[in-house]
């Protein structure tokens, strides 16, 4: 795709207001996070973020309004948490299949969740599979250590990957896995929460 086409494909190409609203902390956190993920892949939005943050600082403001710390604003947070709990419970009742395990990813709310299964291969490696979303064309899979260090990253056009035992340092002990699905335009269509790289049947 040409640069021009890429720029035209940008969902915020005609609406740069999102940049100033983001920098002044006016976006809901979920949208802010989605926009961050976007501007790491969109040069035009990244440029607007860079220039906008410099402008704010030149005008004597913080370049970007930080995420409110969890410890602050408890009185504001509690009603929101209560509302979120009610929404989650309602959603769970509505769903016929309840998830047994929910990861900590804040990105889960942005994209549909990929359910990843891990089994040991006869050779001692890992066989990783997931249900393919209808529009998915490619997948990126990453394994990282408990400290966030990336241990392995690969791509696949099929909803499965085999990883040899010796491909991971320390046999992958306490490693985490995350899978992201992309459509033909390389836009994210689904993503798994980071979860421990261990055979699914061994999970408690």
């Amino acid at each position, binding site marked *: 795709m040409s640069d021009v086409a890429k720029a035209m494909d940008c969902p915020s190409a005609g609406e740069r207001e999102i940049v100033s609203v983001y920098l002044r902390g006016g976006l809901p956190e979920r949208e802010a996070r989605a926009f961050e993920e976007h501007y790491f892949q969109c040069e035009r939005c990244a440029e607007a973020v860079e220039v906008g943050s410099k402008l704010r600082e030149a005008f004597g403001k*913080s370049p970007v309004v930080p995420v409110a710390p969890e410890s602050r604003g408890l009185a504001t947070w509690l009603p929101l948490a209560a509302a979120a709990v009610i929404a989650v419970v309602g959603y769970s009742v509505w769903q016929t299949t309840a998830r047994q395990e929910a990861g900590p990813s804040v990105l889960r709310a942005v994209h549909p969740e990929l359910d990843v299964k891990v089994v040991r291969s006869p050779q001692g490696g890992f066989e990783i599979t997931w249900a393919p979303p209808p529009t998915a064309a490619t997948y990126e899979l990453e394994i990282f250590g408990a400290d966030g260090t990336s241990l392995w990253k690969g791509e696949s056009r099929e909803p*499965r990957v085999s990883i040899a035992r010796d*491909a991971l340092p320390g046999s992958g002990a306490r490693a985490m896995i995350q899978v992201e699905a992309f459509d033909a335009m390389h836009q994210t269509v689904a993503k798994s929460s980071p979860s421990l790289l261990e055979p699914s049947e061994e999970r408690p």
Partner: protein
Amino acid sequence: MGQGPYTPVEAPLQDSDGEAAQFESYRARLRVFAARHIRERAAAEDVAQEAIARTLEALRDGRIRNPAAIGSYMFQTALRLCMHRSRSASREQRALQRFGSGSGEDSDESPLAGLISAEERSSVQGALGALPSDDRTLLELTYRDELDSEEIGRRLGVTAGAVCVRRHRAIRRLAKLLGVRKPSDRGLDE
């Protein structure tokens, strides 16, 4: 290495100069991203540097095959680094509070002041002064007064849509004056 329907990369995607230029273009967005999440300028700089180093290493090791995936890899790396730092900072704060040394409150002073240098701030002010007055007014209303497009449109007597278009052009002009050029920018506006 893994077995499956993918193939390992045999050669680097770019020469080292090209890599360096491309990775530097991520530094500004990494700083902003990290500053928003960890609220501290020096730590934000560290995260930006670490994310660039890790991504460059992954690229050279062949763990990133598709150049289009670099941004996504950089984002995920920076996100994990920020989460890791936030957890460490929380533990440290709790420990300090346990021993009676922590203030228990964040400072009200801007922890992000100085994300750009005084020289750079002066350069931004100079570039702003070099813009046509309409552009300058629009950027001041947006970034200094923090008005939305509807309100700016009312004040300037134009539609909110026209404000968005004009602001986009003003940002582009300012970016050029500041030398903010992305590697993939060529051909967009020439």
